[in-house]
């Protein structure tokens, strides 16, 4: 159980810089999820923490000790890989005890630790099987078991559930959450699946192009995204973005004309500095935040393209005349949604405003 600190960490391959200065502090026992689109550097950052990639510049501290040049096996970390990375020629028992064998731990002590990890993950009946005789979910449990046996200060997970089917993914997600509760260790978990991020994390770190876009609790990121990128990345289906122009600006608020939504005007409260009249802005509304027509606030009418009925809720994919796509979530009876067009209200209290550069205007 240990804290971890990254200070101005950079990573370059030749002239290509993939991590462009990351500062991050992770508290002991915290469950941190790195999330971001493919190629954002989240796996590279994890591999740098693991010691599998060299840190070009900057400092990595685990438990207050600088670890930049320490061998991966001596950093007090354990890693679970996307492909499980189980040694195919060894039984589950041998896989789990392999690291201890090389660390010179006595045989009966290895057996004890392996059995304890097997008990925690209900792997006892599988201990003498080879990895090829296990299902995907079982393999992943063995991979986690192998990590537990090493009794690490920090667990690293690199997209561990990506190779599992949807049902198993949910199951394993819950299992990992349970494990964190039971083991009380620091966990760093990399995923591109924001549902995993939202459900597992104490803290989410959103990365893009090798820099941190925002760090925060899952619901803080959802309720208060720092910029257009985070707003679009967190939340499913993603937030709707509508182009707008500031038509009036004053203390405490702005009026924005939605260029592609029949010139509807939205009056938005602002506590910070307001953009100038004529400035291009983006208005963001989450699919679930559109109100019923007549519920107050400016209204827009859009043509329904496709409606997805999920039972408890429905997603309506609609297009404006200018081709902007809007996703609307509705919880009322699906029978009321058969129309060709729909009118919804924009609630200014639940609407986000972003500058042309993508920064959040509050």
């Amino acid at each position, binding site marked *: 159980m240990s804290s971890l600190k990254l200070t101005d960490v950079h990573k370059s391959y030749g002239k290509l810089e993939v991590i462009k200065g990351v500062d991050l502090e992770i508290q002991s026992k915290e469950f941190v999820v790195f999330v971001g689109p493919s190629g954002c550097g989240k796996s590279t950052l994890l591999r740098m923490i693991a010691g*599998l990639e060299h840190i070009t510049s900057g400092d990595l501290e685990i438990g207050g000790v600088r670890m930049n040049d320490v061998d*991966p096996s001596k950093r007090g970390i354990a890693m679970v890989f996307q*492909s499980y*990375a189980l040694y*195919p*020629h060894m039984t589950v028992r041998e896989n789990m005890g392999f*690291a201890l064998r*090389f660390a010179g731990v006595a045989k009966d002590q290895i057996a004890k630790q392996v059995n304890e990890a097997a008990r925690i993950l209900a792997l006892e009946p599988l201990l003498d099987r080879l990895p*090829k005789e296990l299902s995907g979910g079982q393999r992943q449990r063995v991979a986690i078991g*192998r990590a537990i046996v090493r009794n690490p200060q920090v667990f690293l997970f690199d997209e561990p559930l990506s190779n599992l089917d949807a049902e198993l993914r949910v199951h394993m997600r819950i299992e990992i959450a349970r494990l964190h509760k039971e083991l009380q260790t620091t966990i760093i978990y990399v995923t591109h699946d924001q549902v995993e991020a939202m459900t597992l994390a104490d803290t989410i770190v959103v990365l893009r192009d090798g820099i941190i876009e925002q760090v925060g609790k899952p619901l803080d990121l959802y309720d208060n995204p720092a910029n257009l990128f985070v707003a679009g990345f967190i939340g499913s289906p993603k937030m709707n973005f509508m182009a707008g122009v500031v038509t009036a600006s004053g203390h405490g608020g702005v009026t924005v004309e939605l260029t592609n939504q029949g010139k509807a005007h939205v009056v938005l409260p602002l506590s910070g500095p307001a953009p100038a009249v004529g400035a291009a802005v983006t208005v963001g509304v989450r699919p679930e935040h559109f109100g019923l027509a007549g519920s107050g606030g400016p209204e827009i009418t859009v043509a329904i393209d496709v409606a997805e009925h999920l039972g408890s809720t429905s997603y309506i994919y609609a297009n404006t005349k200018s081709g902007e796509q809007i996703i609307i979530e509705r919880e009322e009876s699906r029978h009321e949604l058969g129309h060709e067009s729909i009118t919804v209200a924009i609630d200014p209290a639940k609407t986000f405003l972003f500058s042309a550069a993508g920064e959040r205007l509050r």
Partner: protein
Amino acid sequence: MTFAMLRRGIVYVLLSLAAFVSVFPFYWMVVGATNTSAEIIKGKTSLGSALITNATAFFTQVDALRIFWNSGVIAVVATALTLLVSSLAGYGFEMFRSRLREKLFGFLLLLLSIPFAAMMVPLFVMFSQAKLVNTFTAVILPTIASIFIIFYFRQATKAFPRELRDAAKIDGLKEWQIFLYVYLPVMRSTYAAATIIVFMANWNNYLWPLVVLQTAENKTITLILSGLTAAYTPDYGLILFGTVLATLPTLIIFFLLQRRFVEGMLGAVK
């Protein structure tokens, strides 16, 4: 329907022909070992009764134990060293990134185009200066860094999951331990296939041993067999009997490693 049947018929005829061309020399070799030289010259292709005569003649004329020992030692040691050195090189070429990697590898492949005959004289001079002529070391040394086997292992290593190496690093293994405890067992099919190829090449090696091995007690089976054909009236029964014996070790190794050979050639990492 008829067209498909005709096509299938033609395919079967062609395949049978190819099978016949492949199998007949072996059949003829085995049958020849049981016939007298005169019968073989006449073209007899059925089993004869001269097996014992041929065997007796072979074992009286040839110090069989000695030459099989010579060939065996050379083939086994050369195979073990080739697999070790060339698989290490293949592993290294695939696992380690370097700006020079592809250039160096391309250069190696280019070397494949130099025929052995062109290197024979310089090699002989080198070994002569090192006072190694007429030793097994001289036969084995030039074979162990096999470009073809390095290439084969590099290609096979592409299928070796990199995350296994990462996992092993985190488990505290040094690079040589990863190679020994993880790579080697995982790639055993590749090693099996390479064993057959390399063993066969060394067992059958002719030209270089012919040049570098000079005294009778150091000669290998291929040199002895070829020597027998040089007689004024070659005894074909005796020669074919020797050939059958010379084929056996490769055959045994092939059957022992057959299943893994097929997996290895298909590039299976399981």
